[in-house]
């Protein structure tokens, strides 16, 4: 299996997606192209550059610990694919056990 095909399979599992075989072929090809481009970036010598996660010289942006009103439950919950008056409803999350 090609590297990009393996990546697609791995991401499918991590992201809990279901991808059809046709889609897999298409995505593999696209991801392959992206990887190739990133490899190109690897040609650049960055040994003397510190890893940068923020480019602005700004730190410690904080806010006061004082409450502000939340939004109404009714308005948010109606955006959920499934909900009752109080809760979001999701497929059952049951942790499976086995005696050992």
């Amino acid at each position, binding site marked *: 299996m090609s590297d990009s095909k393996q990546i697609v399979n791995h991401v499918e599992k991590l992201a809990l997606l279901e991808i059809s075989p046709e889609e897999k072929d298409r995505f593999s090809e696209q991801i392959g192209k992206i990887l190739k481009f990133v490899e190109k970036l690897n040609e650049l010598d960055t040994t003397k550059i510190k890893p940068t996660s923020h480019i602005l010289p700004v730190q410690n942006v904080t806010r006061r610990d004082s409450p502000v009103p939340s939004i109404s439950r009714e308005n*948010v919950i109606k955006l959920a694919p499934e909900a009752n008056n109080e809760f979001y409803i*999701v497929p*059952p*999350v049951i942790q499976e056990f086995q005696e050992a």
Partner: protein
Amino acid sequence: MNTDFEPVIGLEVHVQLNTKTKIFCGCSTKFGLLPNTSICPVCLGYPGVLPVMNEEVVRSAVKVCLMMDFMINTYSRMDRKNYFYPDLPKGYQISQFDNPIGVKGKLSIDTDEGKKEIGITRIHIEEDAGKLIHGDGVSYVDFNRTGVPLLEIVSEPDIRSSKEAYLYLKKLKQILEYTKISDCNMEEGSLRCDANVSIRPKGQAQFGTKTEIKNLNSFKFVQKALDYEIERQMNVLKEGGTISQETRLFDSGTGKTKTMRSKEEAHDYHYFPEPDLLPIMVSEGMIKEATFSLPEKPDDKCARFEKQYGLPAYDASVLTADPSTADYYEECAKFCSNYKMISNWMMGEWLRELNERSVSAVDSPVLAKDLAGLLNMIENGKISGKIAKEIFPEMVKTGKTAEQIVQEKGLTVISDTGAIETMIKEVLGKNEKSVQDYKNGKKGVLGFLIGQVMKASKGKADPKKVNELMEKILS
């Protein structure tokens, strides 16, 4: 095969901070609100929102770092930990990965073999996930807890028994309570613990394969789960098997740990720096400010109680177990100078009342000043210790002071010399043999005779005076 095994334990503790608002938004963190009423686009992770760090979270983290001798990282950063689970609306948890707020902390526990230092690998800031409620064929999600600030405190694998694990947790909780940054309420989930445990033949330097135990809702459960798991691992190895690295759940009903079968592949969190939040640079000034507001450390307070109030080590450790009990003691000590008597009463009657009501010292039904008042009445000979023990429950029930109760019930001590002398003479007349024994050198009967006088007075006679007069009359 060498059957002498040694357990190696490391603990991960999550502590919820008691800030008023969530870590990145202004939603309230109050416990017990109606489901999904303390939520907003930020904590629900809607596109385009901007999380902003709660300043109190950084302040609390720095305080905890200082209380446990952590090395505070001057540059620390939030990272995204990516995974999918229904209680995580954004699809990632904002946490800290390679630049946590503090590293290399420590605390010391009192084992039977003396003090032992337990290393703490790291402490980092992160957000809590929502709560799942399992229903019939579906699960319900409450996002109120999503984004509540947490500190995760990860110990070194320095712990060698379930008892040490228990002591470590107790000490950690004590320090957190002193620092007042969390309610540390295990029932409400504000303190949670996972345990990593492996075993190895004694003397072997290399660690064995570890398992991780989750679902530990109390310190007692941690100890029980570890005991079970250590035993289980030993049996597996003795039978020639191997331990598989896995997550196990503790079932408090059976006292056993069970494999948690996971459908997911090995965790692959793809950590990367959180682009929406700026780095945290802890400055000298922030450390100074935090230092200024730090409480006396529990061990220091305990040592001071021994010295300042002349208390035995045991008393000092009981009275300083939590900060509110220690404060209560010191408040009493302002009004009553018999420090050992305060200690005895607090560890006895007082603690019993609190435990019966399951309240902490802050909610003591009797004010410190009033307990001191009661004890002063004993000190001044106005009431006997026995009467005091009858008065105390009355104080608890009615909230009245000892003075008031004594007056209302006419419980004042009889300290009138004439009246006591009459009682003594009466008792001596009825116990001629004991009097003879006393005169023949059997000094022990004195206690019996005094007891008889106290009984005759229904406990109201001033015991000091009875003692004095008795010796005088008998000599």
